[in-house]
């Protein structure tokens, strides 16, 4: 085995986006936004069915 992958040590860095202190916060926001989009699309389908 040659070498294990290096540890990504940058997750603790601030993303520099107002309102977010960590990258985990950004990822959580993307996930919640995705859920919201799916919910809105479902609502859209029902509204115009």
């Amino acid at each position, binding site marked *: 085995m040659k070498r294990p992958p290096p540890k*990504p040590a940058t997750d603790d*860095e601030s993303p520099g986006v107002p309102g977010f202190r960590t990258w985990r916060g*950004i990822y959580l926001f993307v996930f919640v936004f995705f859920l919201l989009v799916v919910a809105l*699309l479902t609502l859209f389908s029902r509204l115009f069915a």
Partner: protein
Amino acid sequence: MNTFDWIVLLLTMIGIAAYGAWHTRHTDHLDTYLKGSRTMRWGTIGISVMATQASAITFLSIPGQGFESGIGFVQNYFGLPLALIIVCAVFLPIYRQLGVYTAYEFLGQRFDAKTRLLGAGLFLLQRGLAAGVTIYAPAIILATVLGWRLELTIIATGVVVIIYTVTGGSEAVSLTQKWQMGVIFGGMVTAFFILLARLPPGLGFGGAAHIAGAMGKLQAVDFSLNPDKRYTLWTGLFGGLFLSLSYFGTDQSQVQRYIGGAALREGRLGLVFNALLKIPMQFSILLLGALLFVFYQFHPAPVFYNRVEWRHNATGTNAAVFQALDERNATLHLVKQEKIHTWLDARDHGDTVAEPAARVAMLQAEADTETVRKEARAALRAANPLAQTKDSDYVFIGFILDQLPHGVIGLLIAVMIAAALGSKAGELNALGTTTTIDLWRHFRPLAAHDEARNVRAAKWLTAMWGVVAIAFALFAGFSENLIEAINIIGSIFYGVVLGIFLVAFFLKGVGGTAVFWAAVAAQTLIFALFLLRHRYPGLDISYLWYNLIGCAACVVFSLLLQATLGSDRTATATAHPL
């Protein structure tokens, strides 16, 4: 197209390409040439990632998909945001930390030279074949509809993209993609609003959406567990996650777009930009298609939307059959219009008794016109077995040419060509880079220290791939089956490549020899499944499953082989210095 359209088209296309080539003409550092400018910010990276994925076929075919099958195709993208979170959190930091030019270079550092060459080879094989189709597929549609010569369309678009991609490398690709996406967004928004304005007075977006919904075109999310359904929430989530992870995490044409930039933050935010916008963007394009469907309920709708193909075959003894189908379609279309108006009246007056009956009558009228369209396709196939019978790709381009004002027509044709150039440039850039870094430098290690020579090699190899793509597009033959064939080829290789990367990232105890032979065995398994599918009907599965099977087989075989080989064997594996 008139002179004004040509001016808009040529100014937009040549202007952007010339700007990209001129602005990056002094790019002579390998790092900048292959990864782009170190000052690149997240907006440029995000748009570049988006432009590489969005080919001309996206803007020609997806409105047609919305027109024909509704907006359910949007579910195909449900796995994308989740995949991009994984790429942001795991793949990108490692690529940047190692300072690699290609994703396969990472395999060399993590495993050994042979695994790196295997990963690069699989990418070059798959993407190299697809490169010709990226030029050919939109060219055949534009040439058919606009009466351009196919070979000139292929050569002109191919040469333009080669010039600025070779001149400025990755930086030119990202820079031009930014402006090309500007043209694309501007053009699509213009088309959307013109379409809304051309709907019958008083109908508006709400009325049009209700008609599209009643006719089954606005079912965006399907929770069904029925495996026969192609697009559901579940296939989108699981299949989409898997495909997006392969594409964004291991395909050099995407990796190259986000590994550059001023800092890790810029690449991550560029990907987050795509994770947030991709589904709404695809939804908008599909919705445009669904609204086109409504538009054609109130305007004369051809029985077959590729009118050039239809007219070309409506000769001799076929003429009477084709004319009869045209006439039946026109009659049924008028009947359907009447039924739609009856249903709208019942609905607007809140008549709960008449409304359901009117809806059933409207749907029956739609089914009748669909029957005639099927008969038209059958008649076309009977008249000419080589005829293209899939006409949904021609719906949007037909609307552009027939309904939009001059100037806007030129802008929308520019949208299609901009999308073709943007995705083509990303592909050529990645093919040239992978060939330079993973093959040329590997086999000529002494040359690796001569930066100017490296840049020259990268330029020549990028140009070579451009010429290969043009040649392939010119001599490829027929588009429809070819596109499907290329998708199948992609699925055959994608799963195994993703499997290698997942082992690299998450299974730290597995070494190069184990993963290499596991990948070879997994690839052999996929080839066997593919080749034996006709002999054994039980193996005749959708090619999309090859992605999952290839990846799972590679991971499982790696673990088994590693357990068999033991740590001593892999420690002395053929590790090769990079």
